[in-house]
């Protein structure tokens, strides 16, 4: 149900552009108003969501330790997997955010006759996830050339590297290929692996289709349904300098691309895509395993009803005295 609903929704979104831009000619709506609104929703939404998490207290220091603690000087402590200081936490988080450390551990349990269970390494999810996120980031950086003048050197640098093999005219970007393959893999595993299909919601398929739509429309307009790049840049710089203009005759493919990107931006803060911000705040990862070295303070720690020693001795005093256990009150 979630799959078809999501696919259907993305198709409708594309059709909306055909209608809105192609037929009715609402170029300003799709070229200016919607992108602005989407960006606003994105910024306000993300700040609100992250702010809400950040405001929530962290009552206990609960890192998941994945390596040797720092204890005795002659036992080698693992500062990456069981960080005991801030540097360790920073490196642990960097590995997690940049290289998906935890996902790299992934294994696959398989039940065999006997009965026995064996564990195989499986790196495909990690690889596809990493390929997807990194190519997305590089594509985003490449797009900066539409918003900047002069174009920063690193944008040209990345772009040069991305098109290193100089296949086709215009040059085929590696990141374009990689993101399409990675998203396709991430989608297929959701459909093919029975357990993953069982847990998948519309909220899992929808962003995949949306991103696939964004990437496909981008590739199509670069290589097949060419649009006027100079006019695209005119629109983009206009948007970012707050003097929006909508040049005539950019081409429909661009509006589809832009509308899907706008949808993605506006959808982002309401969705699981917020894991982008959330991963930095996860208390099992971003806290040091130095619990016994430095006291962690719970801001809402409140007094609780306890059974005091006095109450305990009152109940058992005679029995304690009878067997010679020292007591406070004779």
């Amino acid at each position: 149900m979630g799959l078809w609903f999501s696919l259907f929704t993305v198709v409708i979104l594309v059709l909306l552009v055909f209608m809105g831009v192609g037929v009715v000619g609402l170029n300003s709506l799709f070229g200016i108003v919607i992108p602005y609104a989407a960006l606003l929703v994105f910024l306000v939404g993300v700040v609100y969501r992250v702010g809400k998490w950040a405001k929530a207290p962290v009552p206990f220091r609960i890192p998941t330790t994945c390596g040797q603690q720092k204890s005795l000087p002659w036992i080698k402590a693992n500062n990456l997997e069981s960080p005991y200081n801030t540097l360790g936490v920073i490196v642990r988080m960097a590995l997690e955010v940049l290289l998906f450390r935890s996902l790299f551990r992934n294994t696959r349990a398989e039940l065999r006759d006997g009965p026995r269970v064996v564990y195989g390494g499986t790196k495909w999810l990690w690889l596809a996830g990493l390929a997807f996120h990194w190519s997305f980031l590089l594509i985003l950086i490449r797009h900066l050339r539409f918003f900047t003048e002069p174009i920063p050197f690193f944008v040209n640098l990345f772009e040069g590297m991305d098109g290193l093999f100089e296949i086709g005219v215009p040059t085929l970007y590696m990141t374009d290929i990689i993101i399409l393959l990675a998203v396709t893999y991430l989608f297929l595993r959701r459909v093919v692996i029975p357990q993953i299909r069982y847990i998948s919601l519309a909220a899992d398929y929808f962003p995949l289709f949306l991103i696939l739509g964004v990437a496909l429309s981008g590739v199509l307009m670069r290589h097949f349904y060419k649009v006027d790049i100079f006019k695209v840049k005119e629109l983009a710089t206009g948007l970012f300098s707050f003097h929006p203009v909508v040049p005539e005759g950019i081409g429909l493919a661009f509006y589809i691309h832009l509308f899907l990107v706008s949808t993605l931006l506006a959808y982002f803060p309401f969705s699981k895509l917020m894991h982008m911000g959330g991963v930095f705040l996860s208390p099992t990862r971003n806290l040091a395993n130095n619990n016994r070295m430095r006291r962690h303070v719970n801001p809402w720690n409140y007094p609780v009803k306890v059974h005091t020693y006095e109450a305990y001795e009152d109940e058992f005093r005679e029995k304690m005295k009878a067997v010679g256990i020292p007591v406070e009150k004779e």
Partner: protein
Amino acid sequence: MSEDLSNVPKPDELMGIDHKPPRKGWMDVPVDFKPGTYSYPAKAKNLKILGMPNPREWSPTDEDWKLPENWKEIVREGFKDRLDKYRSFQLFMDICVRCGACADKCHFFIGSGDPKNMPVLRAELMRSVYRKEFTTSGKIFGKLAGARELTTDVIKEWFYYFYQCTECRRCSVFCPYGIDTAEITMMGRELLHLLGCGINWAMEPVANCFRTGNHLGLQPHGFKDTLEFFADDIEDLTGIKIDVPLNKKGAEILFVVPSGDYFGDPGTYTCMGYMMLFHELGLDYTWSTYASEGGNFGLFTSHEMIKRLNAKIYAEAKRLGVKWILGGECGHMWRVMHQYMDTMNGPADFLEVPTSPITGTRFENAKSTKMVHIMEFTSDLMWHNRLRLDPGRNENLIVTFHDSCNPARAMGLIEEPRYVIQKVCNHFHEMPENTIKEQTFCCGGGAGLGNDENMEMRLRGGFPRGNAVRYVQEKYGVNRLACICAIDRATLIPVCDYWAPGVEVTGVHEMVANALVMKGEKERTTNLRGEPLPGKEEVEDE
């Protein structure tokens, strides 16, 4: 202690499972309380002792659970309260992408094939309600957004599956965002407790512990008897009479163990092991009858209950005027001592930074909490060669080590026990790497689930561990499974009997004590279990 496993189907039959989920969506599959797979509910008397809500007699198989009239409101309020108090809870409700990396990391999923035992789905049981009650998209799109109505069926499902999670945290090792199902299960159980739905095997120990100081309900004179009984056994074995310091004011160290160590075999041998070691060292320490429990089933109940039960540790250290605290071999106890105690009941500014009186080592890693793990203490002794050891006395043991969940994943205590084990025995083999250290598998009976009525589920959950034990049994002839957890010492016995028959379970300090050459001891012919020592078999026969 061997349990009756005759009601459980044979391994082949038990594992005749399919990890493929059914066609029907999980929201449409109602929970089925199958005998052998759930724990009996908390008795009213125990809830009353603790002042907990809605004490009553009931059964999970009843149609009517006799929930409070406004139960829905209670859950909603309780949910919101916890979202406001715990960033972890908010995040873990919000950021899961359902990548499924956690799915086959759970011992209960591997052993049962029930899709709701996939950590992701266990959490979705709760997230679905969260979406409906607290998110706009959930309110508008309902099922399409993964949201569902809070009904009594949902409560029943929570009860079944949050008591089919041992809070072992293995899934959180693999989660790219560190989502910790233990945290979710803890919240789920807290909400259930607001309605009076707990399990007796957790709540009876909690009630006992609150009143008598330990989970077993052992009163001070009984505690003293037990330890003196051990001292007599030790005298028979070694010819040495050892002291049992109890509630001794001014002692240097307060020693705290899980009550399992003085309750049942083979924990008792570990307990004797501590006593022999301390005697040999001439350690100035004391037991406490009031703080006679290091374990804390509050961890399996609610954060408030952790604090209520744990408070006595520092209170007793203060009353007795000790300098620091030493803790025995226990798993979940050490999650509490390491990650919660100082925050909840500290600061322990009346204690001193723990320093070993034997080696002079200052335990800088415990300088705030002022509590040291016995493995840290003993490995330090061995590193400084302060013990005379004869590992030959353990020559007949071919040992492997089971990392307990909490020391491994909430503490990082990994090398210390290995160091100690290899000092006291000559034959040590690791289980496969996917089953040890931070990837260790639960015994299947942690977090209050180690009761007899839940045996089938325990054996299912214990399958990955048992399977790994059998692997080293077949490969290296392993016959002893060492562990540093009192629950393990009870629950791994049926796991081994069922999955790897012939392997026995031991605490590490039992092996230490067997190897320990004590000053003035008579020639030992048997180990603590009364079994002949290697090379002394004939003496025994005479």
